[in-house]
């Protein structure tokens, strides 16, 4: 019984010690005048918990064996409890400076990559734009009037919809190739 009590109280070990008031009424929660949030369970005083029936000791009334799935869940919650989750990183001055430098370098690297990509898109757009402008001012072939090829090129029949993009084209890039990297013997 005493072991269960210590287990229940282990979570409360780090909370600031609150003096026990000799009171017969319900002990009050430590006052936080500027706070509107509710106080977490492990911050409440043991007397308050015991009086509300939230204490582990008061809850474990029957000594019936627990179900395995219940034990499993308890273990899972134990792993995810704030005691087991590591504390936020604390770094000394130089270490933090290195971290900051690495972070900035990474951001700069990402930005360079992004800008290179955008430049390529702009170049490609300009190339298409110039080609279209030339096409618009071109008459022919034969006796077709100026810009007729341009208008045909801008038609959208069959461009959208399910058959607009072939399904093979959606293949994602991988880190290593397939066993047979390319199907050279594909036949129509």
């Amino acid at each position, binding site marked *: 019984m005493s072991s269960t009590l210590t287990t229940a109280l282990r979570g409360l070990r780090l909370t600031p010690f609150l003096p026990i008031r000799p009171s017969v009424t319900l002990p009050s929660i430590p006052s936080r005048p500027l706070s509107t949030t509710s106080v977490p369970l492990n911050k409440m005083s043991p007397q308050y918990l015991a009086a509300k029936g939230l204490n582990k000791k008061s809850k474990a009334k029957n000594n019936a064996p627990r179900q395995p799935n219940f034990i499993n869940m308890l273990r899972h919650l134990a792993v995810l409890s704030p005691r087991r989750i590591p504390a936020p990183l604390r770094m000394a001055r130089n270490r933090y400076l290195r971290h900051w430098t690495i972070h900035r370098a990474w951001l700069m690297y990402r930005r360079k990559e992004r800008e290179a990509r955008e430049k390529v898109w702009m170049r490609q757009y300009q190339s*298409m734009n*110039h*080609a279209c402008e030339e096409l618009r001012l071109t008459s022919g072939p034969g006796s077709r009037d100026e810009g007729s090829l341009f208008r045909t090129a801008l038609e959208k029949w069959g461009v959208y919809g399910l058959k607009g993009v072939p399904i093979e084209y959606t293949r994602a890039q991988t*880190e290593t190739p397939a066993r047979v990297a*390319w*199907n050279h013997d594909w036949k129509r």
Partner: protein
Amino acid sequence: MLSAPSRGAALLRSSQRVCLQCARTSTTITRAAPLAAGRRYFASAEAVATPPPSSQTPPTQQQTRTKTATSPQQSQSPAYRIKSGIILTRPPLLTREQTPFESAFYLYQKRLNERLTAPFRKDFYFKKDTASDLDWKIKLKERHGVPAKDIGRYNPRGRMAWNDEVLTGSTTSSPENVLEALLADAEARVSEDGEIMAPEERVPVERPVPRKTEADEKNDVRRLDRALDRTLYLVVKREVEVGGKKEAIWGFPTGLVHTEEGLHETTARVLAEAAGVNMNTWIVGRVPVAHQIVQPIEKGEKPEESKEKLFYLEYLKEQADLKARGVKSEQVEERGEKIFYLKGRIMAGQADLKGNKHGYTDFQWLTQEELKEVLPEKTFKSVRNMFDLR
């Protein structure tokens, strides 16, 4: 320069009202041409307003305006022949290689993550006293109790948890080492009966196929499984006779646009005629991604002076074509060309030049850098802006 309202007025003035589609597809050219000229929804004033450049100073830039037809005679036999070409590309199959900075950064982040995450919950993943549980225990012991497989020798929960940076020159973060670590971990250490296997009994897992293929090592430029992390472009070779000597010109497959065709139809036809049908291709859009203009040679102009040699070769070829077809022009010695390139993607198959109608004798799949060495300079300059990042 027409303003927008005046254009609208011109539209209203056109007496015969035929829809644009009918005007375009009409087979009676004598009727359709004036009709379509009256119903124009785009600005053409700029082209008429620009004076044609003089023949003494031929434009060198690709983007300069082409010589416009000014007299009605010339518009009867235009100075340019319109061609459509296809730039058939094989997209990269592989992601690009990690830079050393990237892999180092990834290792750094992995270690920080290990410092910050909840502990690994073994019971959730491995049922007690099963073969996989034993297997996990063995591997965990070899990793000194650290669940992460690819962070090297580092314990994020130990006394030295602060020491999460690798020293300069360490190869812990390199992709090869990470791959080796993962492969070693994937090997089964315990048999299905729960017996611990001796080192000689263990079956190694299948290694991933290397990124460099056989075609890369042989530098076989005709195969498509080379340079897997790059875009490959299909170029074809023509041989032109100049003064009894054969010269080779590399370029993209191109062909004349027929009167009834759109650019994308020509492109599909040219591709099938030039490189065979046994390729799973997709022409990305109907809009050209690049264009190339070959200026016409006017009367009395010597092409050698103004044009580059390789382009002159092209002219000679065309001249032979024209003579064979009996085409003659009054004002122009030799007609120029406007080539509009469309972009295509290949997903499977291989080019086959057997019996092609365009006289192509050879083909190659090249990266952008290799294209620069093979293509004529002007062709390369006119298409290079459509190239992708890699």
